[in-house]
C-alpha cells in the first residue's frame, strides 16, 4: 500500500514539474520581432517583398495617370511556385492596400482571372428582373468600370544543398504591371530573399 502511495505521489510530482516546464505561448511583437529567422517564408519576408515592390512601382512613375486620375487595377494570376502552402494574398494584399492609399490606383474586385473576387457586383444585377425589388435601386447597365492595368506574378523557390551539408533556400518574388490596352509591361520588379540553414530544416 505504501508502495502505491509512493509511486502515485512521485507521478503527480513529475507531472506537475513537467507541466511547469512547458513553453508558454507568446504573442509576437510584429513591430519589433527579434525572433530567429525560419527557412520557410514568414510575414517579415512578405513585408519586405511588398515594401520593395510598392516603392519601386511609385518611383518608376508607371502609375502616374495624366490629369492625376487613378488607374483601375485588376489582380491577375499570382502563382505560388514554392514548396509551401502559402496564399499569394499574403503578398498581394499588402501591395493593394499601399497602392490604394497612394491615391494612384483603385483595385477592381469585379474582374479576376478566375472570375470576380467579389461576385456581389454581378449577383446584385440579377435583381433587375425581380419585382420584389425597387428597380430604381438596382444598378443600371454600363456602370462597371473595366481595368486599365493588371498585376501578375510568381513566387519561386529554389533549394540548393551545400557542400558542408547545409541547405540554401532562395525565394524570388517576381511581379509585372501590364497595361491592358497594349499588353505592355510598364513595370516589373523582383525581390530575392535567401536563407541558409541546417540541411535538416524543412522549407515547406
Amino acid at each position: 500500500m505504501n508502495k502505491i502511495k509512493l509511486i502515485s505521489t512521485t507521478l503527480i510530482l513529475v507531472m506537475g514539474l513537467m507541466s511547469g516546464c512547458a513553453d508558454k505561448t507568446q504573442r509576437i511583437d510584429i513591430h519589433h520581432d527579434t525572433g530567429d529567422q525560419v527557412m520557410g517564408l514568414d510575414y517579415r519576408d512578405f513585408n519586405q517583398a511588398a515594401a520593395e515592390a510598392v516603392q519601386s512601382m511609385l518611383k518608376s512613375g508607371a502609375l502616374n495617370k495624366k490629369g492625376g486620375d487613378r488607374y483601375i487595377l485588376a489582380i491577375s494570376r499570382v502563382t505560388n511556385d514554392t514548396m509551401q502552402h502559402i496564399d499569394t494574398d499574403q503578398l498581394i494584399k499588402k501591395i493593394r492596400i499601399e497602392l490604394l492609399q497612394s491615391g494612384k490606383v483603385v483595385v477592381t474586385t469585379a474582374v479576376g482571372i478566375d472570375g470576380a473576387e467579389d461576385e456581389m457586383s454581378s449577383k446584385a444585377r440579377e435583381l433587375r428582373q425581380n419585382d420584389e425589388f425597387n428597380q430604381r435601386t438596382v444598378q443600371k447597365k454600363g456602370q462597371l468600370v473595366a481595368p486599365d492595368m493588371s498585376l501578375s506574378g510568381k513566387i519561386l523557390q529554389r533549394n540548393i544543398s551545400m557542400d558542408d551539408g547545409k541547405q540554401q533556400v532562395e525565394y524570388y518574388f517576381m511581379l509585372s504591371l501590364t497595361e491592358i490596352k497594349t499588353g505592355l509591361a510598364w513595370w516589373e520588379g523582383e525581390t530575392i530573399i535567401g536563407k541558409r540553414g541546417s540541411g535538416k530544416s524543412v522549407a515547406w
Partner: protein
Amino acid sequence: MKIYSLVFVILIAFSGCAEKSYVKIVDSSVSRYIDIEDVKERVREDGLKEIQISGENETDEYILLRYRVTWKDKDGFDIPSISSNWTDLPIHKDAEFSINVIAPNEKAYDYQLFINKQGD
C-alpha cells in the same frame, strides 16, 4: 570628417525641435561607423515627396544596418505606411551609401527616418 559629421547630427537634432522632419541614428554606436553627409527632399511632379539621405561608411568593414520611415500629414497625424517597417541597409566598406524613399501619398508632409543596428 568626424567633427563635420558630429556637427551635422547635432544640427539635425536641434532642427528636429523646430521642424518635424528629421533623420535619427537610434544607437549612438552606429555613428562611429557611418557619417550622414546630406539629406535632400523634393516634391515630384506627381505630388509625392521624395527623400534621399546620403552617407559614407568610413570603416573597412561591410555593415548591415536597417532603417524605417514614418510619415505625418501637415497636421501632424500619422500616415500608416509599409515603409514604417524596418528595411535592411547594406553598406559596403569604405563606400558611400544612400537611402531613397518615396512618400506613401500626397498628404505625407513630414518624415522621421531612423537608422539602427540589426536586431535592436
